[in-house]
């Protein structure tokens, strides 16, 4: 009963925040609403017994995405173009109403269809539960991500790489100082915070990676937490944007894909199946590589610059 009440409040909160994201006049407010939306989503994942997703949503969906949105808003605003309020009222009244109606219709249809769906026996998920033992991990999500559907994970890393490549390609006119850099806050408190938080984020990332085999966690969550540490360093000016990507960064960016695919190819070359990782050690090795690549990609994407360097 209490569970139902919590779910209801959560659901109402999510819908209200979504509405606010779309409707609020100020763009900053919209971004903030979206971040809170992400946090509530993370709670919803927890309520839906998907703690892996709760972690990922909090770290990536709300955390990194929110930070990206905020910093972009800040950069747009700093150039004297506050995207804030130039837009409302919406495009035009006559377009708003049909759009709203179409969206509402879609809501009704999708909702109705979803409610009608019966449970199907023998899904891929059921098979995954049954055959989890073959992978060598006990967390089924990790099992699917790095075992049964490892190929998806690999391609997803390629997507992340593509996003960084794309961002670097469009940021060709990078000039130092063109983007309002982070405020270099030299206050004792911030220093203290960093000296605590960054090691903790590394610790947490390693923990999540290690735990991923049997409990909620894994490379993505760990990578996001690690990235959060990097983002903090960047925001507080310990790291700054550099016009070139250093060699180490380049290696780090492709590490995940390279280790993953070479491992897969190696297995195939020795007579196994492509991408069938030989045991848990291989999974942890690949996950470590993935974690480093994910963290580095996210920080670089956040910096919106080709590379990073330490503040001189």
């Amino acid at each position, binding site marked *: 009963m209490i569970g139902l009440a919590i779910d209801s409040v959560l659901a109402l909160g999510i819908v209200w925040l979504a509405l606010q994201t779309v409707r609020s006049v100020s763009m900053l407010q919209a971004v903030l609403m979206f971040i809170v939306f992400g946090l509530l989503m993370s709670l919803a994942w927890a309520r839906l017994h998907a703690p892996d997703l709760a972690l990922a949503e909090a770290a990536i969906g709300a955390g990194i995405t929110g930070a990206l949105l905020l910093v972009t808003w800040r950069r747009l605003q700093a150039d004297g173009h506050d995207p804030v309020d130039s837009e409302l009222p919406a495009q035009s009244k006559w377009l708003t109403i049909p759009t709203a109606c179409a969206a509402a219709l879609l809501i009704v249809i999708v909702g109705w269809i979803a409610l009608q769906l019966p449970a199907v026996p023998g899904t891929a998920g*059921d098979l995954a539960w049954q055959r989890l033992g073959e992978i060598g991990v006990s967390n089924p999500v990790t099992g699917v991500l790095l075992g049964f559907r490892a190929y998806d994970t690999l391609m997803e890393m390629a*997507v992340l790489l*593509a996003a960084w490549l*794309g961002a670097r390609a469009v940021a060709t006119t990078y000039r130092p100082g063109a983007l309002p850099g982070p405020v270099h806050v030299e206050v004792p408190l911030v220093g203290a915070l960093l000296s605590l938080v960054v090691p903790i984020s590394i610790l947490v990332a390693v923990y999540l990676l290690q735990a991923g085999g049997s409990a909620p966690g894994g490379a993505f969550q760990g990578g996001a937490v690690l990235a959060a540490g990097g983002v903090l360093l960047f925001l507080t000016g310990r790291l700054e944007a550099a016009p070139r990507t250093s060699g180490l960064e380049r290696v780090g960016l492709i590490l995940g894909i390279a280790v993953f695919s070479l491992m897969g190819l190696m297995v195939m070359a020795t007579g196994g199946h492509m991408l069938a990782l030989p045991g848990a050690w291989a999974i942890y090795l690949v996950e470590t590589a993935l974690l480093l690549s994910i963290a580095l990609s996210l920080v670089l994407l956040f910096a919106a610059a080709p590379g990073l360097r330490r503040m001189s």
Partner: protein
Amino acid sequence: MTTEALVGLIFLPLLGACATVLPGRLATRAGVLAGLLPLPWLLVVVTLAVVQDPALFVELGGFAAPLGIRLFADPLAVLMLWMVAIIGGLAAVHAWFDFPPDSPAGQSFWPLWLLLTSAMNALFLSADLFNLYVCLELVTLTAIPLIALAGSKTSVRAAMRYLLLALLASLLYLLGIALLYNATGTLDLYLIRTALTAAPPAAVVTALALISLGLLLKGAVFPLHVWLPQAHASAPGPVSAVLSALVVKTAIYLLYRLWLWSVPAGTLAAEHALMLMALLGAGALLYGGVLALLQERLKLVIAYSTVAQLGYLLLILPMAATAAWPVAWQGGLYQLLSHGLAKAAMFLAAANILHALGSDRLSHLRRLDQRQPLSLFTLAVAGVSLMGLPPSGGFLAKWLLLEAAWRSGQWWLLAVLIAGSLLAAAYIFRILAASLGRDDPTEAQPVAASRSIPVIQDAAALLLALLALGTGFAAAPILQFIEAGAPAAWSTP
């Protein structure tokens, strides 16, 4: 051996892309060469295997579907892979000069290009609906930065619009997949067929509608084509070529897979859906043709021509329920092939013209036969195929389509096909006429002198055009190959 070749088609460009990111002067060069050069050889192996067995499955990780992800190669997939290898390869040759691997531009270009190649190969081979979503996103997120590499305001605007619509399209697709998975318990394109009959029809129809809508949006099918012309016209030449010849086709390819392989024949009001899509195709053919006729820039004419020519690919769908299906299928695929070759040739030639003349306005093309004879020749030869005039692959495709339309008694299709090819003739000849024009003696500004183009760039474009022409003579073996994997016709009601 075949498994290795199939895997190599995806992983070589992927690892090549990784290599191009690495530091070192030679890394980019080595990555590009290692990622692209072996592809045709691998394809020969795959082709030979598919000739033996027209439905080739490879289970990744050794997990059988629906648990694992499978790769699937059949004649259709192999045809698409060949197009990626040939068109992508020649476009890469062309790009080598505009984006030298050592230059900053090349550093941006080549990793994305290789990832795009890998993504398209993966997409054409994948048998898993969610994996296809990932591949689609990868294609989108590599193609769009390549557009923006042109650097102009127009190109960035086009890229931004394309990105927003592509993301919307992906989400519609994903929603459809979500419903399908929960209605059937599988994501495998080929296993889902049997499961769909047992699933609740309302859910399946909604899911199929959402997926198709997303794909139609990605495939720039009229009236969802708004993003395409500017994006394709403002991209760098080789990118335009690949976008028009291959990237938009990925969505059409998936529509084929979905409706002709996954949906059980004749169920779920599929006939109406196919008819609807064919009507959209007809609209595309006519609207795109008229719009192409009204453009003032060469690249925009070619881009609108893509909008139009995609229509042919949808027109064949309603014939799945008729006895003319084998012919229609052959015609559709031949159109896919010849349009790809011709369109890539035209975009590369247009890029050469743009480089040489500094403009691609039709009014600036006069005396092109003196200034850029090879480019004009390329445009003309590729144009012949695009118009469907003999001797060319486009002509054979049109012949097959007409024959199929006639055999199936779909007279309106016949009319649309004819109207489409006449419109194509009109806009192609408009380009040619503009190119043969003389200098106007009353005009103050003489035509700008033309800059010289590396001969390889001209040759790449010309070779593609000649291939389009050559497909007019090599149809017999290709069609025989295609026929082996044609989806079964629906039993006529």
